[in-house]
């Protein structure tokens, strides 16, 4: 068996709050996501939903309202080593990654926004970056198109390097001086889970000693929101005054779509031997991963592909189905998606394993979803508490679904929680399954 790979640090920017209060300033915007970092755990386990409405005002079209979960995050405050302007997603990536590096003991927070890296003793050629995003650069691309077509203005000189999908990974590599593999994965909703899993493989194979991994997504701009709205997968919104805390209802009988989220989740993955040398205290490992493709449909999920992926992840972690104590479902509250996943989880893990979807709280963070849901899964291991199904009750659950759904507020695990499994099932058919374990 290969050497365990530890999650030696992690950080995040999310609609429920970020891992760094210093980079999350309160605003008077009135958005539901305007929350400080120290509230994150409380928000997560209390089932707080950050979903609110946003108007799309595009020329020649009636105003449309869509559900979103945005972050209280001013990306103009984040500077990069390259000093070129950052896409909002890349700025979120840098912020989350800095927190992960500080958490892993690889950097220190010198001031509220100051940051000093201390990676002495680590061979930079054996440090990699594995990053995921479904629509990387979308924020800047949409703004650039608006400048050209709506305002008749010229394009910024560095638009290409801001928009290119590997911009965030490149900025991260510059920040930590990582000279090993620098990879970007675009597999829609599975992007960051694939990035984490492929980094796990690279570390196990001995190609790297340490990897900065995760994903980011910032796509809450008019053109992108209109595109998602046109696909008819978003929960309907009547007007700007609608109360949307109950808008996204995974596993409910009357589920009708999701809210788009944004944010980033970052992790430091490290071979255990090196982590021990550095005195890392983390006892959580990334223990299993598998990915495959349904190859049946662009958007319709296939239970058999999901089943194969979960079985493969269990084999990869050398675990039995009964070892899994919590499942963070992909469940986006679409009719077909939740049904396919309930069937696949039932088949592989049985009906008794506690399961929840945190999409009702974060929104669907697309390429960052897998990373953020791994944050929620790690929180479950650390607190021995199961993240809730925020908008689900015995009265509202789909009567066809016979699983052990966690209540609408987080509950303490009934038995010691040692292994958690997180599903990411993407448009395009990519399935990715990650398992994290407490190795105490």
């Amino acid at each position: 068996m290969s050497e365990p790979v530890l999650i030696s640090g992690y950080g995040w920017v999310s609609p429920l709050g970020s891992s760094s209060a210093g980079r999350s300033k309160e605003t008077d915007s009135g958005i539901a996501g305007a929350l400080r970092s120290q509230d994150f755990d409380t928000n997560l386990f209390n089932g707080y939903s950050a979903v609110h409405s946003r108007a799309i005002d595009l020329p020649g079209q009636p105003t449309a309202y869509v559900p979103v979960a945005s972050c209280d995050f001013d990306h103009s405050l984040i500077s990069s080593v390259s000093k070129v302007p950052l896409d909002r997603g890349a700025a979120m990536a840098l912020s989350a990654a800095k927190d992960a590096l500080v958490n892993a003991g690889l950097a220190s927070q010198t001031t509220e926004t100051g940051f000093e890296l201390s990676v002495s003793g680590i061979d930079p050629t054996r440090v990699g970056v594995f990053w995921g995003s479904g629509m990387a650069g979308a924020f800047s691309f949409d703004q650039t198109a608006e400048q050209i077509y709506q305002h008749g203005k010229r394009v910024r000189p560095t638009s290409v390097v801001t928009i290119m999908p590997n911009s965030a990974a490149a900025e991260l590599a510059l920040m930590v001086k990582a000279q090993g593999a620098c990879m970007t994965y675009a597999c829609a909703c599975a992007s960051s889970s694939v990035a984490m899993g492929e980094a796990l493989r690279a570390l196990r194979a001995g190609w790297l000693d340490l990897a900065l991994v995760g994903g980011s997504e910032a796509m809450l701009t008019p053109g992108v929101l209109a595109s998602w709205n046109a696909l008819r997968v978003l929960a309907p919104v009547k007007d700007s005054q609608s109360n949307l805390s109950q808008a996204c209802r995974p596993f409910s009988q009357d589920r009708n779509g999701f809210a788009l989220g944004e944010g980033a989740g970052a992790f430091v993955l490290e071979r255990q031997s090196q982590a021990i040398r550095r005195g890392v205290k983390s006892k959580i490992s990334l223990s299993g991963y598998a990915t495959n493709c349904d190859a049946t449909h662009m958007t319709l999920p296939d239970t058999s592909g999901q089943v194969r992926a979960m079985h493969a992840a269990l084999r990869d972690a050398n675990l039995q189905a009964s070892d899994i104590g919590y499942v963070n479902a992909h469940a986006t509250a679409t009719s077909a998606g939740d049904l396919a996943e309930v069937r696949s989880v039932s088949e592989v893990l049985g009906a008794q394993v506690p399961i929840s979807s945190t999409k009702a709280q974060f929104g669907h963070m697309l390429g960052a979803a897998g990373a953020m849901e791994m944050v929620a899964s790690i929180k479950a291991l650390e607190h021995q508490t199961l993240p809730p199904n925020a908008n689900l009750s015995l009265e509202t659950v789909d009567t066809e679904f016979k699983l052990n759904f966690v209540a609408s507020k987080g509950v303490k695990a009934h038995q010691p929680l040692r292994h958690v499994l997180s599903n990411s099932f993407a448009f395009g058919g990519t399935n990715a399954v990650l398992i994290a374990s407490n190795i105490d």
Partner: protein
Amino acid sequence: MTENPPQPEQGSTYKAIAEILVSKFQVEENTLTPQTLLTELGIDSLSLMEFVFAVEDAFNIRIPEERLDPREAGIDLQKLANVIDEFILSTKK
């Protein structure tokens, strides 16, 4: 049209471009003088393009490359300020 367009206040253009460097490109204010070369700003070629772009936006002008190519050696902030002032005056004539 004004017959005698107002002359830019002495040093005001330099101050404006120095402010852009400090606020948008994280250049330390106390490292800047009118004689600081563009190549000494501690910003790379990409950022230099963004800097000139930001300066042009701030003054609402487009400096033709034959007037000033920021990639050339030996251009300092005062020369950039002078080119801006001359360009503004020439377009007002």
